[in-house]
Every structure is written in structure tokens, then in C-alpha cells.
């Protein structure tokens, strides 16, 4: 199968008043057509910044190096004009907060039609028909009327569905969703998760789901990439990751999800400590201070190894934790 998106040696650095932050450190991954990849990690793990870097959307003080080949073309070597041809049309991103990423002054119609006209070269009428179809696909009731409304007239769940509709408008090859359901109620979350799942399956689109919650992505991803302190610490199929995590951090992420389907044990298995200070990363394995399995070897930073076909881990432990 051909590779749709291939990221190689991605590094992201930020200049801050306190010093340099090396937010993403040598990230590699690839995405096949129709595949759903979950990128999982805590705040500050670099998961969102890596995606923004690929799309050329880093903040002013950020700089990225490395390659991100989309259908063979390196996105990171492109000028902003060249990138604009791909953003939204070939690769679309849905952000966490729908209220800040929709323009409050423009009707939904205006925001959707502009995208469709710009990227797909549709006329106004066709663009409108297409936009209404997309709203119907994400189950906005009465889309012909509601398309004329403004963002504040919709509930949080509906705004997020509109964001998805806009993301899908140009039928991109890759859909990147950054914590698309975090700010939402569980009932809305489950509706949306099912919706994204369905759309991705139907259109053979590839998707990257960014989240801190392994519970949410279990049912909707094919592969999982776990990031810690800017690096990949584990990679595998969703079944491998949940059934036999190889990195203590992954194990911790799975165990810290409170579960409804189990009888209560006394305490949740929290990961002790806090995410590391990216301004002053400790030497050796960056997870060492929070790891219950740390031993002498961990004073040396572990390399990424391949313990099995298609699996990666960055840990000195021989056996799974």
C-alpha cells in the first residue's frame, strides 16, 4: 500500500524568554490511506505542535525542521502559497475549541461557502448545496434554515459538528482532529466519535486523532502512537497497545482511565508526578522520575527499538511492565 503521509525527523523548537523549548524531538511516523492513527500524550508532549508544524501553523517563536511528505511532496519545504493549496483541501484540521475557531461575525453559510468556492472552484449555488449536504451528513437538523445562523445560535455539540462539516467539505485525504471531543459532554462525544468513524470509513479518508485520553480512541483507531516529552515512546496497533503495552507510560495511561465497566478498586492507578519541564529535561530517560520500573540503565536515554513487526518502544525494560 502506498504511504499517504510520511513524517521524518520532525523537530520543533520554541524560543521563549526562559530559554529554548525542544517541543518535538525527531518524530517519525507514516499514515496509510484509510488508516486512523491516534497520537496520545499529556499536555506538553508535543502532539499538537507536531501537527501544527506539518501544516506550517506554528506560532511566531517556533521553528520546525525535518520532512513531512504528503503523496511524495515535502510540505515543510513549501512556500506559504504552495501550502495553501493543500491546507483545507488535502489535509484538514479540526481544532479543540469550536467557539474560537469559528468566526462569530460570519454566518455558517458564509464560512462554509467560502471554503468550498476557494478550494473546489465551485460556484456560489453549488457551494451552498454542497455545504447543506455536509451539514446534513453531520446530522444538523433542518440544515437549509440553520445554515443562515451564526455560531452562537448553536450548542457546543452542534458547533463541533459544524467544524467537522467544514473539515470534511473538501473531502480531504487526511483529517487531523485535535482533541475533538474533550470539551463536550459524553453523550455528544459518543455521537461525534461515531460520526467521525463513519465518515472516515465511508470515504477511505485517513485520520489523525490527537488526545490525552486513551479511553476515547480505543474504539476508533487502527494504530496508536504514544508521545512523551516530545518523543515517540511507543507505537503499535490499537489491539497491541491495549492488550500488551510495552512502555510503563502507556501502561500508566491505560490504567489511569476510570472505568465504568469494572467494579471499583480502591484507588485509581495514577501516574505519579507531573509532565516534565520542557525547559530543563532530566538526563537519561525523560520518564524515569515518574516510572515505577526505573533501574540503573535508565540513566542513559533509551533508543527507539523494534521489539516486533510494526511495533516500536523507547524503554530499557526487557519485559512488558
Amino acid at each position, binding site marked *: 500500500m502506498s504511504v499517504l503521509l510520511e513524517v521524518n525527523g520532525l523537530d520543533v523548537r520554541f524560543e521563549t524568554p526562559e530559554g529554548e523549548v525542544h517541543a518535538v524531538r525527531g518524530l517519525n511516523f507514516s499514515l496509510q490511506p484509510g488508516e486512523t492513527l491516534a497520537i496520545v500524550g499529556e499536555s506538553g508532549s508535543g502532539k499538537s505542535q507536531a501537527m501544527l508544524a506539518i501544516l506550517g501553523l506554528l506560532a511566531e517563536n517556533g521553528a520546525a525542521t525535518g520532512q513531512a511528505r504528503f503523496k511524495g511532496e515535502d510540505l515543510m519545504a513549501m512556500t506559504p502559497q504552495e501550502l495553501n493549496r493543500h491546507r483545507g483541501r488535502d489535509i484538514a484540521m479540526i481544532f479543540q475549541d469550536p467557539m474560537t475557531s469559528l468566526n462569530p461575525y460570519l454566518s455558517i453559510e458564509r464560512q462554509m461557502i467560502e471554503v468550498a468556492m476557494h478550494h473546489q472552484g465551485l460556484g456560489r449555488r453549488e457551494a451552498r448545496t454542497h455545504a447543506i449536504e455536509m451539514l446534513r451528513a453531520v446530522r444538523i437538523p433542518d440544515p437549509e434554515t440553520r445554515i443562515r445562523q451564526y455560531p452562537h445560535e448553536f450548542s457546543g455539540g452542534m458547533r463541533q459538528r459544524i467544524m467537522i462539516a467544514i473539515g470534511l467539505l473538501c473531502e480531504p485525504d487526511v483529517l487531523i482532529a485535535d482533541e475533538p471531543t474533550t470539551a463536550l459532554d*459524553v453523550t455528544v462525544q459518543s455521537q461525534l466519535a461515531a460520526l467521525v*468513524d463513519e465518515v472516515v470509513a465511508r470515504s477511505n479518508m485517513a485520520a489523525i486523532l490527537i488526545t490525552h485520553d486513551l479511553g476515547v480512541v480505543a474504539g476508533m483507531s487502527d494504530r496508536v502512537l504514544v508521545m512523551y516529552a516530545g518523543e515517540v515512546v511507543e507505537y503499535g496497533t490499537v489491539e497491541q497497545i491495549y492488550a500488551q503495552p510495552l512502555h510503563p507510560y502507556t501502561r500508566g495511561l491505560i490504567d489511569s482511565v476510570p472505568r465504568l465497566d469494572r467494579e471499583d478498586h480502591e484507588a485509581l492507578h495514577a501516574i505519579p508526578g507531573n509532565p516534565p519541564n520542557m525547559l530543563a529535561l532530566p538526563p537519561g530517560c525523560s520518564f524515569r522520575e515518574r516510572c515505577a520500573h526505573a533501574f540503573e540503565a535508565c540513566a542513559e536515554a533509551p533508543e527507539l527499538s523494534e521489539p516486533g513487526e510494526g511495533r516500536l518502544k523507547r524503554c530499557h525494560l526487557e519485559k512488558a511492565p
Partner: protein
Amino acid sequence: MSGPASGRRRKQRPVLKVQDLAVTYDIQQGGLLRRHTRPLNAVDGISFELARGETLGVVGESGCGKSTLARALLGLVQPRRGRVLWLGEDLVGLDEKTLRKKRKELQIIFQDPLASLNPRMTVHDIIAEPLWTFYPKIARVQVEERVRGMMKMVGLLPNQINRYPHEFSGGQCQRIGIARALVLNPRLIICDEPVSALDVSIQAQIINLLKDLQRKLALSLIFIAHDLAVVKHISDRVMVMYLGRAMEVSSAPNLYRRPLHPYTSALVKAVPIPDPAARRRTATSGLRGDMPSPLDPPAGCVFHPRCPYAVKRCEIEVPPLRRLPQGDWVACHLAEELDLTIVKSG
């Protein structure tokens, strides 16, 4: 009218008794010429009892009135009707001065840990502020001793005492918020979405901490959240709210094994299971559409337009919250006929 009482600790006198509490906001509507106000019943007739050392979870979607309930309990918003009996004394209608004294015993922890801490104050001053407010003549050494004790209790390091909130991660900020809430030795803490802004890994730490402190200090806890799995983990009993009303009040294990209300059942089914084998199970919560506007709540049972089991009666008659023989409470006409069992016993 007496509300659902604690099952396990029923024989003990409750510390808090809430009776038929209702809060109404006036919402401005219309343009310049046709401006008018409409009442929004954010909390509509909530009753419950809370025992010493008990945790009541309050769960519901955005707009169900759970945060308004928290504010009404503390007298931060004025209820339209009802009583909040704290150790037998009604807090509703107390003057501000008397109410402030009561707040020594009733504290709150907020959702956004960083936003609820003053960025210009050190950890020491944030935790000490309630002491200065309630005991203006307290000696400096006493304050510092108390602050250090609190920091230790919530898992902050002694050398962090002079740092500022921005130097801490979200989880640590929430620990500071908890220390501030505990410094006056309260007997009841209301936690309003205390972990929903945190990473899952850190969430678990804070839940464990709250559970631990509650046991050590025999605190009563009202734990408000939209995440049912979190609520179930920390609560003895859980109240499920929808459009300002209680749909069900059940013991935490029962709520998951055998929900009594169709809305509870939908909430339970919507929680994602962190297991690929349960794939696509999450897609079948069975809940139709969105929550109706609280300005225009449906007649009869407020849940009936979204309920897969609704019958004619549900459109007309408001179901009262009533106690079933097994001890849990439900507001559904069909509770006896429905079997919403999710986990078979045994």
C-alpha cells in the same frame, strides 16, 4: 417533602438537607423594541440529604443546572424557593455576614485550577488568605505552620511555598486549590468539575487525593462532573440531573449495573470503554437529538422527547422523584416496567 437520603448511612443524622430547591434566572430577550425577560428554571425542585463523610456525585450534561445547584447551596445565587438546611439551620435568606461565617464550613473547588488562583499571589498567600479573612489577628508563624501542613497534606513540596501559580502544572494548581479549600477545616466541600480540565493521568492523582482526604478528615463531598466514570469512582451515591431536575438518585454501583432512568442508561452507554474489543459499542447510546433549550422545557417529563420508551403519559404528566422498594430514587413513570440492566449480576 423529604428527598433521597443516604442508603448506607441512613440512620445517621444528615449534615445537609436540601428541600425542593429552585433557582430561576431572568433572561433578557428580544431586540431594542420588544425587549422582555423570560424565566429560566436552572434548578427546579431538587431535594436530597447528605451524611457526614458521604460523597454525593452530581452528573449531567452542560446546561443541566449542576453548577447552579452548587452555587445555590453556598448562597452564591439566591434560590427562588426551597431550603438548604446545614446542620438544621436554613442557609437560604441568611444575611451576607452570617452566611460568610458559614462558609468556613462549606467550601468549593473550581474547574479551572489556574484561573481560580490569583496569579500575583504566592502559594503561601493563596492558601493563607482564608485564614487572614476569618482570623485577622492570627500570628504569622501560626499561618505559616498551617500552610505548610496543608501543602504536605495535598502533596506539594515545602520548597514550593514561595512560587507563583504559573510555575505549576494543572494538577499541581488543583492541589493548591484543594489546600486553600481545606485550610479552614470545612465539613463540606463542593467540587465543581475539579478534574475535567486535567490530563487523564493527572485526573487519577487528584481523584485519589480527594478520596483519601475525605476519608481522613470525614468530609462530606458533593462532586459535580459530566464524566460518569469519574463520578462513579468517587461517589457513594449519584444524582443524575437533566434540565434542572433530578432524574435518578442511586447508589454508585447500582447506577452502572442497573440504571433506573432511561437517561441514566443513555449516559452510561455513552461512556467510551478503553478497550478495542468494545469497539463501536460506544456508538449506541440510543439518545436522539440535542438537549432542548432550558428556556422552553418540554411539558410532562422533561426527557420525553429524547426517550426511546416514552408513552403518551410522559408527554402530559411530570413524574415525581420517588423511592423504589430497593432503596434508590427515580423520576420515571415506567421505572417498574423497564429493565435497563447493563451488567447481569453474578
